[in-house]
């Protein structure tokens, strides 16, 4: 349970605009050493007199404990709300309060397998670090990145080099194959003998991938996203109905029981309702 989580003052090392996103690097000391792909950090927003009382959670894009000034994490941030706009407006040298590493991580197979990594929008962030680890274990890694338009594809050069194939889809067809990531996944599974899918992105996308994974009988680990207040497992706002190994559906916290979960265990499309049979449903 967040065994290595720390709360620290972190300095911004760099902040660069990349397409619709900001690539930001934060000095984090030992947090980098313990961060695994799928983990996230939670950052205070707006300074000491902020009226935004809750942290913002960001999946770790990459982490390294070998920076010039110790460990650092890299984040890919979409400035779409007042909190993320404030954060992305900060210059290098500014400090923020950061808690991490938080949550569950993607499981790494012990044997070399054929893996497909699927990212939607800035949801692609944790997949590049994951890809590097999988490659170092002898896995074949194919990647699909999708977004509404070209500007919203986050696919850095080094990321492209770390995979065997990269397929891009956009809703408007401004780059890659027009359509959704789910349109191209079946062929990739069939042609490349995919054994496991790792995904991160909007809930609708994760649900669609879960269906495909079940059809083809491949494993599917996904990083889910639900609005959170605390990020550390105390507020119970970010819950999701998840079926346990005992067959019982429970409202689990996406921050601490997730964000990485087995796609087939999630009861999808359960916004605004508690699925029938959920433990303690009233």
């Amino acid at each position, binding site marked *: 349970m967040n065994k290595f989580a720390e709360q620290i003052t972190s300095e911004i090392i760099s902040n660069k605009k990349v397409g619709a996103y900001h690539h930001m690097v934060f000095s984090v000391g030992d947090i980098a050493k313990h961060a695994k792909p799928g983990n996230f950090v939670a950052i205070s927003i707006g300074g000491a007199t902020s009226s935004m009382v809750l942290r913002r959670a960001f999946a770790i894009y990459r982490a390294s404990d070998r920076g010039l000034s110790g460990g650092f994490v890299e984040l890919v941030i979409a400035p779409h709300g007042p909190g993320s706009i404030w954060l992305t407006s900060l210059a290098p040298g500014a400090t923020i309060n950061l808690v991490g590493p938080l949550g569950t991580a993607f499981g790494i197979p012990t044997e070399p397998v054929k893996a497909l990594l699927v990212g939607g929008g800035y949801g692609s962030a944790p997949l590049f670090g994951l890809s590097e680890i999988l490659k170092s274990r002898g896995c074949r890694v194919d990647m699909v990145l999708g977004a509404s338009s070209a500007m919203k594809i986050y696919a850095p050069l080094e990321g492209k080099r770390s995979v065997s194939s990269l397929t891009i889809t956009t809703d408007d067809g401004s780059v890659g194959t027009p359509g959704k990531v789910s349109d191209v996944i079946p062929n990739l599974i069939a042609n490349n003998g995919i054994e496991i899918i790792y995904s991160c992105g909007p809930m609708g996308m994760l649900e669609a991938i879960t269906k495909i994974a079940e059809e083809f009988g491949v494993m599917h680990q996904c990083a889910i996203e639900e609005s959170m207040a605390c990020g550390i497992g105390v507020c*119970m706002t970010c819950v999701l109905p998840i079926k346990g190994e005992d067959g019982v559906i429970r409202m689990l916290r996406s921050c601490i029981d997730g964000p990485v979960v087995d796609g087939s265990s999630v009861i999808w499309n359960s916004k605004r309702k508690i699925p029938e049979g959920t433990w*303690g449903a009233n």
Partner: protein
Amino acid sequence: MGCKLSFDYATALGSANFNNPIFTASGCAGSGKELSQFFDLRELGALVTKSIMVKPRSGRPTPRMAETPSGMLNSIGLQGPGIDTFLENDIPWLREQGVAIVVSIAGESVEDYAVLARKMRAVPGISALEVNISCPNVENRGQVFACNPETARAAIEAVRRNIGGELPIIAKLTPDVTNIADIAEEVVAAGADALALINTVLAMVIDTNTMRPKLAGFTGGLSGPAIRPIAVRAIYQVHARLPHVKILGMGGVASGRDALELILAGASATSIGTATFGDPTACIRIKEELEALLVERGFNSLKEAVGYAHREATQ
């Protein structure tokens, strides 16, 4: 500061004594394990558990949360494992930590409160019982016992009759009433030893894109600094009416300065809730800040500062 060494930070609620006045707020400390990653729980005056009900409860569907200016709405709906699992799993671990424990209970009926009190009667190692009769996140607002003097009294009487022994009862009230001091008088007459003021304030956010209420449960409880002046007012009014009844104050405390405000209004201890969501170590920071502020103002003990804002104008 030399005098800091002799500063007496201890406090009491009913017959229960605590090392310091900084508690967690019900429903804001998980099982205790999550926060123990960030600080030693023994640093707390007490850990107040999430409100536990008779049976397991899934709580409300999502979305359960909406951030608001200087606050947030929650609509959890008392998700929890039920009293039996709670007593079996959560309490033994907390007892091992050596932290003072205040168990919070919530019922759907007067009989539920009686059942919960009977279950708690034989549990060792508990400092006090918080009786939550004011959770706003229930399907039927008629269930908010603390909105009505008769139902508030009935729930507290049911606990008093069944709890036995010396375990102090802290009745948790809502500010969503015409006169909170009237309700406070009722529950004290019914056997409450102390009061917890205030629960979250019933509120709503409408998403202007979907043009529907943002929360699945439509309404939620507003917490955070936005409600602090309401908490200060409620504590002040109740302390004025019932100066001998101890108050556990809460509502938007995010700093030692905020905690001091509640103490001056009449609280003998303060619970930290929403501040922990933004800052996992908020309780420890606030504890240190409050002590420094009290010493700075020349108080020799916390108890001297309780209700100090009520003193005569000439003082």
